């Protein structure tokens, strides 16, 4: 699941060849303007290395404020990183206007709210024709043929029924499909989906998740699925990446991470998730709320909430270590010397 060079662990599904998109040491510190903390920074994302190979789904899971949305914005280049670099098909991404536009044609973002990400005064036809014109240079009748094709790819059939509708005439799930179709118009290699189903009705969420699954299979897209719902991450993803307070604390094959979590934070998330099959009362594995990212805790950022914290956790940040197979976690409990004598939970 990860390849380790001398200094850095790259998270994400392990596949042979060059990943479609790779982030190396991506860091984002937002400056604080005004107020008493002027001149300081919010450490939103800290040294994240992530590889997204084609034909895979990587889920990023975490609470609000964990940095998962900032990460997806860094990957779209909507936000400039403080440090770190992006590689598209192994090539460093340039900063020129031309390079930006080429990048936008390769990496596409699907937003959370399909009620505000489509323009209410334009038809579906308009939404789909624009990227085809701007990025593919298509003209005339070809445009409509391709627009209809796009709708069929997201299972909005027959396409003629939808082309002349306006966003308000569609349901939430249909709108999200249009947003995805618009993303596919530029023939991207990478689709970044930031909470794509959390605003949708429960009964139609699976339809959109299954569509992402088909796009992975059929179009070999590299998909990043950002979510707070660990059960849906387990359902859809090849790899689950768990973020806490701006850092990746654990990653590995989806089922393995959710069935035998290695990091105490992942255990906490799983213990809190709704589960109708749960027989015994819930025992929360930890308390409290995520820390301020202006003054993150020393050492391991999770140590103030961790039920298994040791003295070392408050002093030194734990290195990323293998837990089992392709599963890795940043926790001192995985250090054979440190964990000796500590009961593992």
């Amino acid at each position: 699941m990860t390849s380790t060079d001398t200094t850095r662990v790259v998270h994400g599904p392990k596949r042979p060849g060059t990943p479609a998109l790779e982030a190396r040491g991506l860091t984002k510190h937002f400056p604080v303007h005004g107020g008493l903390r002027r001149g300081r920074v919010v450490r939103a994302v800290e040294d994240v290395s992530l590889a997204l190979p084609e034909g895979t789904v990587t889920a990023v899971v975490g609470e609000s404020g964990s940095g998962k949305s900032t990460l997806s914005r860094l990957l779209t280049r909507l936000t400039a990183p403080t440090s770190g670099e992006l590689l598209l098909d192994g090539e460093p991404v340039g900063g020129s206007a031309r390079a930006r536009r080429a990048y936008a044609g390769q990496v596409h973002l699907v937003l959370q709210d399909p009620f505000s990400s489509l323009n209410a005064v334009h038809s579906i036809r308009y939404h789909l024709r624009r990227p085809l014109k701007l990025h593919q240079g298509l003209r005339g009748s070809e445009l409509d043929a391709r627009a209809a094709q796009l709708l069929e790819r997201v299972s909005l059939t027959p396409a003629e029924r939808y082309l002349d509708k306006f966003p308000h005439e569609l349901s939430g799930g249909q709108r999200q499909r249009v947003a995805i179709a618009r993303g596919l118009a530029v023939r991207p290699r990478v689709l970044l989906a930031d909470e794509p189903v959390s605003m949708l009705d429960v009964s139609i969420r699976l339809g959109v998740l299954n569509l992402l699954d088909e796009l992975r299979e059929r179009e070999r897209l590299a998909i990043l699925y950002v979510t707070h719902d660990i059960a849906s991450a387990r359902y859809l993803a090849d790899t689950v990446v768990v973020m806490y307070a701006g850092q990746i604390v654990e990653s590995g094959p989806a089922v393995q991470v959710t069935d035998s979590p290695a990091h105490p934070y992942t255990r906490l998330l799983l213990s809190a998730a709704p589960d109708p099959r749960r027989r015994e009362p819930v025992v929360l594995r930890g308390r409290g709320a995520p820390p301020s990212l202006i003054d993150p805790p020393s050492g391991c950022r999770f140590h103030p909430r961790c039920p298994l914290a040791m003295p070392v956790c408050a002093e030194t940040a734990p290195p990323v270590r293998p837990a089992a197979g392709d599963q890795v976690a940043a926790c001192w409990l995985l250090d054979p010397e440190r964990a000796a004598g500590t009961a593992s939970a």
Partner: protein
Amino acid sequence: MTGEPVLEVRDLCVDYGVGPGGVRAVTDATLTLRRGEVLGLAGESGSGKSTLAYAVTRLLRAPGVITGGEVRFHGPDGVLDLLEADAATLRRVRWDQISVVFQSAMHALNPVARIDAQLTDALRAHRARLGAAERRERAVELLRLVGIGEERLRSYPHELSGGMRQRVMIAMALALEPRVVIMDEPTTALDVVTQREILDELMQLKDRLGFAIVFITHDLSLLIELADTIAIMYAGRIVELADAQRLFHSPRHPYTLGLLNSFPALHGERVRMEGIPGSPPALTALPAGCAFHPRCPFALARCAHDVPRLTEPAEPAEPDGAPAARSAACWLHTGGEHVPAPLARVLGSTP
């Protein structure tokens, strides 16, 4: 649940607007809430679950109109018909006997008033004989009840985290020790860990103080853990009503089955799930007959024109010998029809 009823809703109907432009948002809702019970109302947006709750508390705003039915509240001074009650009676009962926790704590708290002022406001209105010192004492007590320290009394809402604001909302709802607390998606905007902490506290408080809860949410998987009885709503109607374990292990309505199949599991083999095809209907264009029939994999010919009533399914008694305290609005269960296997499971068999 053997407690005596505290809130009874009979054939409640609610419309939005009148005349040809009006739509029916809740149709013939019948429910009973017992003392100390958690009654879950689950459904998608537009299913009428919030409308039902607001109609019961008479908080519904125009163009919402209650067009029929009966809501009987069993208070300390006898039974009260809430739909007939005048403004003065309602003012006395609301908050004191029936309180509401609204969905968004961010907007439900007054941003320019401190927490102590908002907490003591209800005490001032309903407990006139309390002095300022006693009110403050009670406010501290209430905050402690929901796990917030006294030092937060002088805070403004924006100084609190989302979870704390929601806790303050719950403290306010409990201020006068009501018999019934109605909670409309109380934890939807919160992170899972905070949600779990608040729900744990809420259940402990319920056991200690003995109030009953109507819990409204779209998250059926959460509700099954939490609620004693669950009512599933679709397009304004209650389509299935059963205790939580029966509903989860042996659903009777195809919509309930579809909803249960819409939540990926946290354990076991990964299998492809299909959810429910199509999308919920608009209230302005409800299908004839059973509103669910266009999305139903088991639809019969009569489902397209006859509306099924909520009745006890025609089936043998449950193996545990208990009377089948459940009902479903589906033609498959009225007898004579072949019931598909997923809708004929009995409690105790492996799902």
